[in-house]
């Protein structure tokens, strides 16, 4: 009950009492004045009258002051109450606003929004209806009560939900029971009394309708409730959009992960394929090379010179085929990142010396001068000596192959910043600038190499680069046509391994 109902009549009674008293006094005074000459009795009466009048005036003043004070107190209380209510609204809105953007997914964001509306407006049910992309509005989130799955066709012109959605204007019904346009099912099943349809608008386009239902009659929708629901709807549009974007991003991420996995599997298949094909090719080659070896050794009888020459040609070509298979296998390992490096602290001088010695005969046969510059002190690095030997052999073989008679090939080893530098230079045919960028592609052959019918597969440099990369090093080319080429390998002394390394074991590494 309103306390003012008790206070006002009491004030009024006192006030009236004092007015009556004052009027009584004036009446007594006037009676005394008109009664005739003053007597001591009259004087007394006058005195009493004046006193009563004074008391009445005091009373009146007192009562007036008190009424004023009460009114002031009441006003202060109302102001406080209103401020507190505003503060609460604000706090709720802040609370919801804080919760909405943090919602993990689109559905959570929608539910949080519905719950928030109920919390602030004190309704019994909040439903968010959104277009399903198939000509209907369906409930995407519900809060407060379990409502049957709701769906309304966008063609349903009688539907309040549809018209609120289309017009983007809020619609309020104070008494659902008597309203012709509202489905009786909604009202009956929920004991609903009043309801508000608030469109959810994103960038001026309606994206949904928020329905708030009360189980008590609201004669009219207060401005405050309308504002709060409107605010929520606006807030929700943003949060839902954000959550939708997030879930789309999540979907894209999932697709990407699946594609990466598919690629990984296809890469594995490719590696397995290369591995098994190489096995299938090596097995017959092993017989060809092995039996030709036996015959050339003279273990099963002697050949004529011509027979020996022809068998040697068979042998040479079988070995070429073997080299190609080995290169493909190595390249497949390099590309799949499955090449296992057996790193050990190695004095590279030994590796370089060995490789150069192996090529000495070939260089001499081509009438080339092969020079080697080695430092006096050890040049150590954590490397797979066999692999680095393979790189140097490739580079040297290229240098010799592409340098004409009378040319020079130089090999130098030395320390560089944070590592060691190994370079192979020649005075050969050089590489055109256009070709230099593609030099490390597999099967790529420089134009002048192909034009001059210089044999090769275009795998050597791709393999070399792969091996150097796996060591965390770099391979650089400097070249000018008809002047020569210098290829420099930089290897870090103490590299961060890029590929898993196995513990160094006593492995007599074999290459046939």
């Amino acid at each position, binding site marked *: 009950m309103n306390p003012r109902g008790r206070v006002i009549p009491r004030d009024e009674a006192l006030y009236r009492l004092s007015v009556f008293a004052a009027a009584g006094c004036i009446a007594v005074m006037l009676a005394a004045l008109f009664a005739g000459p003053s007597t001591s009795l009259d004087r007394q009466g006058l005195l009493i009258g004046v006193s009563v009048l004074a008391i009445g005036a005091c009373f009146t003043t007192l009562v007036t002051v008190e009424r004023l004070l009460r009114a002031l107190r009441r006003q202060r209380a109302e102001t406080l109450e209103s401020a507190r209510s505003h503060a609460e609204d604000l706090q709720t809105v802040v609370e919801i606003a804080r919760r909405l953007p943090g919602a993990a997914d689109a559905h959570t964001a929608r539910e949080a929004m519905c719950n928030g509306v109920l919390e602030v407006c004190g309704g019994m049910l909040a439903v968010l209806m959104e277009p399903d992309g198939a000509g209907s509005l369906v409930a995407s989130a519900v809060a407060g009560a379990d409502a049957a799955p709701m769906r309304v066709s966008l063609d349903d012109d009688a539907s309040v939900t549809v018209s609120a959605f289309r017009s983007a204007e809020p619609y309020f019904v104070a008494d659902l029971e008597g309203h012709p346009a509202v489905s009786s099912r909604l009202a009956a099943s929920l004991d609903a009394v009043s309801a508000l349809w608030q469109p959810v608008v994103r960038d001026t386009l309606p994206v949904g309708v928020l329905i708030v239902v009360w189980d008590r009659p609201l004669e009219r929708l207060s401005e405050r409730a309308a504002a709060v629901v409107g605010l929520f709807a606006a807030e929700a549009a943003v949060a839902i959009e954000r959550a939708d974007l997030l879930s789309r991003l999540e979907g894209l991420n999932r697709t990407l992960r699946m594609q990466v996995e598919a690629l990984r599997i296809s890469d594995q298949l490719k590696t397995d394929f290369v*591995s098994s094909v*190489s*096995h299938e090719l*090596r*097995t017959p*080659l*092993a*017989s*060809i*090379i*092995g*039996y030709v*070896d*036996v015959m050339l*050794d003279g*273990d099963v009888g002697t050949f004529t010179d011509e027979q020996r020459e022809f068998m040697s040609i068979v042998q040479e070509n079988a070995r070429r085929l*073997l080299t190609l298979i*080995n290169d493909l*296998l190595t390249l497949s*390992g390099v590309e799949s990142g*499955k*090449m*296992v490096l057996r790193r050990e602290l190695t004095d590279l001088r030994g590796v370089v010396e060995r490789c150069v010695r192996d090529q000495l005969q070939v260089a001499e046969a081509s009438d080339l001068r092969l020079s080697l510059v080695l430092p006096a002190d050890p040049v150590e690095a954590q490397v797979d000596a066999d692999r680095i030997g393979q790189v140097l052999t490739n580079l040297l073989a290229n240098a010799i192959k592409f340098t004409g008679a009378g040319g020079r090939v130089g090999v130098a080893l030395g320390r560089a910043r944070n590592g060691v530098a190994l370079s192979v230079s020649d005075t050969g045919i050089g590489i055109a600038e256009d070709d230099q960028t593609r030099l490390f592609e597999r099967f790529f052959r420089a134009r002048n190499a192909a034009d001059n019918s210089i044999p090769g597969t275009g795998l050597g440099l791709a393999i070399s680069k792969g091996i150097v990369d796996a060591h965390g090093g770099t391979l650089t080319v400097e070249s000018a046509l008809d002047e020569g080429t210098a290829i420099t390998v930089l290897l870090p002394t103490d590299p961060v391994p890029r590929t898993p390394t*196995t513990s160094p*074991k006593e*492995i*007599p590494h*074999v*290459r*046939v």
Partner: protein
Amino acid sequence: MSEFETPTARVLVADDEPHLLRLVKFRLEREGYEVLTATDGESALKVAREERPDLCVLDVMMPKRSGFDVLRELRSDDGFAGMKVIMLTARAQDRDVDVGFSLGADDYITKPFSPQELRVRIGAHLGKR
């Protein structure tokens, strides 16, 4: 030849490729070894158990049981502790080599093999010069 000075070492060669098996047998017999043969993993294991050769040369990809399988069996039996095992295979990838050694192979030779290499390695493992 030296077989008259030292007792002849016995070598088991297992390979499912008959041509290659014959080639290795031919080479090893020329070196003076007594050569036993098997064409699959199961019979290789049987021969190894019954004949107790000094050294086995095992192909990896064989029917019934792989060379790695045979190696694993042999290494799990203390009775074969002194038996040398060399893997001879066309599977030349690093990880295959690693598997071979981690299972306890004494050596690993890839096909096609050089006859000199086969001779030298077998000789080294049997303590021959």
